[in-house]
């Protein structure tokens, strides 16, 4: 039986495999920073119905204070995943999963235009 870790993360990391995708995503999506691109990737994962989980092998990239200075990210994740007790761990997982979803391989950049243009329209 796997026991949930009781303390939330103070830093968020990206796996080495996802670092390249993140770099490509920043360029392809004209993001102002890697953080904005990572949040976009996280949103993709949420929208794809990614379930709770943890990411193994993610290093240390951002302090949660700089990633989520107003706590909005944490609040949103808590709202969307009410049973989650360690929101930043989940944020890390969602960001890495999102980047994995954005990966089109070495040859192609992530299709940000496609993802944005196909966003669900308001009813």
């Amino acid at each position, binding site marked *: 039986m796997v026991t949930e870790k009781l303390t939330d993360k103070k830093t968020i990391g990206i796996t080495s495999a996802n670092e390249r995708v993140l770099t490509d995503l920043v360029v392809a999506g004209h*993001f102002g920073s890697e953080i904005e691109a990572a949040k976009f990737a996280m*949103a993709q994962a949420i929208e794809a119905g990614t379930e709770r989980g943890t990411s193994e092998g993610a290093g240390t990239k951002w302090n949660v204070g700089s990633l989520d200075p107003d706590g909005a990210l944490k*609040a949103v994740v808590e709202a969307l995943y009410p049973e989650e007790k360690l929101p930043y761990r989940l944020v890390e997982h969602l960001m890495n999963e999102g980047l994995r979803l954005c990966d089109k391989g070495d040859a192609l950049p992530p299709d940000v235009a496609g993802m*944005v243009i196909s966003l669900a329209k308001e009813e």
Partner: protein
Amino acid sequence: MLRIKTIHMKNFGAFKGDQSFDLPDEEGVSIFYGENMRGKTTLLNAFRFALIGKIIGRGRRQVSFHDMINWEARSEGERSFEVRIDLMHAGAEYRLTRTCKPKKGTPDPAVHDDYVTEYFLERGGHILSPQQAELELERILPEQISRFFLFDGELLQEYEDLMHSESDIGRKISSAIERILGLPTLTKSRDSLKAALDRAEANVALAAQGDQKTREYGNQLQSLVDERDILTKDLFRQESELDELRGRKAAIEDDMRRRERMGALFDKRDRLNEEIDALKQHVDERIEEVKIAMNSAWSAVIRTRLKAAVDEHRKRENELQSLVNRAQILRELADGDEQSCPTCLQTVTEEAQEIIRAQLPTGDEKASSEAQRELASVRRRLDALDEQLAKANPEALRQIWRSLETRKLEIYAKQGEIEEIERQLSSDAEDELRGLRREYDSVFRQITALETGVAETGEKLEENANYRDKIQKSLDKLAGGETDLAIKRRDYTSRVHALFAASVDTYREQLRHRVEADASRFFQQLTTEPEYAGLRINDSYGLTIVHRDGSDIPVRSAGAEHVVALSLVAALQNNAQLRGPIVVDSPFGRLDGGHRANIVETLPDMADQVIVLVYEEELPPARAREALKGRLRAEWTLERQSARHTELVKQ
């Protein structure tokens, strides 16, 4: 009547090594089938090279001799090519051999100018001297009229364009047409008679000078005749220069027509580049907007989920708020802090307080504070959700990206067009085109100056003729003896000259009517439009389609141009003094099935010997056999051996 009997090629284009074929002696059609790039145009060029020493590619561009040596043979060390044809003309047998080889002292030729061509002509097995050979060739098939015997069907429509224009090429073609039809025989006679008339007038002057009574007139007439000779010589010189310049202008016009498309391509490329620059600026502006919009893109992606979460949290907030409110009121009533019920406003008695206290759950304090904590937590999340929802605008994001992508796609499309254009343009084509335009302007100015000179000389000649006429009349009254005889000779020559001059116009008119009638007949055979009644010819042999109600059809499609031009070629063949074979590459151009069928059926009527170069899809062999029946004399296939080697195979 010129007939080709055999053609032999050696390392000519795709035809590697020695390859030859005999054409049937009987009248009819011979067909060569070959897919694209197998050498159909090369085969047409083999005839052209042998007969006039030229090789013309698509777009009427002269092909470099260097490129015409079979590539495989060249890589094996071959440096020359040769075409030999056996002909029959006016009962005599000819063999024409033309060779292209490197110039002396050019061991490693690389460009067109490194080569030289030589030919020799045999008649009845005897080699003719170079001068004789040149005269015979000029008689058998002059270069100027070769375009009506050897032609690329895809270029046919140009002839009609040219003949309707006032261009120098148009004049050249009209003159070539008259040459085919035999008009020069008459015009040369007329010109010889003019020379005889001039001599007769000079003799009148000479005779008058020998007589005391007429000497003064004789002297004046002699001086006018001398002046006329000088002016005439001057006029010839000017006209000859003008002719040469017009020839040059025609060649430049021809070149420019060919490059007109290239000029248009340059203009299009420049315009596309300007459009791309403007689009790139738009893209840069859109990217700035995108950068700002992407800060909150993550919220837009999950907007639907955010909204659902807000609804759930709002519901929970209400539940918790009710719970907290109820607990607080009950506590206040139980503790007696509140004297009256907040709902019914009745006073709460001691007994009622007891009942309320009994109803209060145990541990209520703790439950209430938990509800309050949860309520605070729900509100915190609600605030965050509301804030993100306010930022999330997927529609705006979608529009900005769509606009950005649309412009990027436009740029890619235009860049693709530019690449395609640049593939069609050679690197130095732009400079060549500019040089050509400059040369055209210069030749045009020279022609204008010379035309003025010719007009002035003509006026002086007319003035001279008027003076001479006056003196002649005075002489006629005084003349006698030798002068009288000379005058009679002059008058006789004058009448004969006038007769021939008039006959040129009459014959030209008759020819035009005959060509018009024959072209109309062929046109009716070829066209699929039943309302077209025929063709009307103009002074320069341009043809206009006539509707059956008698009106002209003013605008013609490319297909109609093609059919009209084919009708003209057939009519010229029918009326030509110099009759010969027709060798035609792609005779159908862009014509539809109905026209194609008509052309196939008409081909045998166009000339005694017709050689057609087609690909099978254009004219399936079964259809050709069915349409031509016994008039199909031979079929060959151009078979691929390799990309640079084609073999002729008889079917």
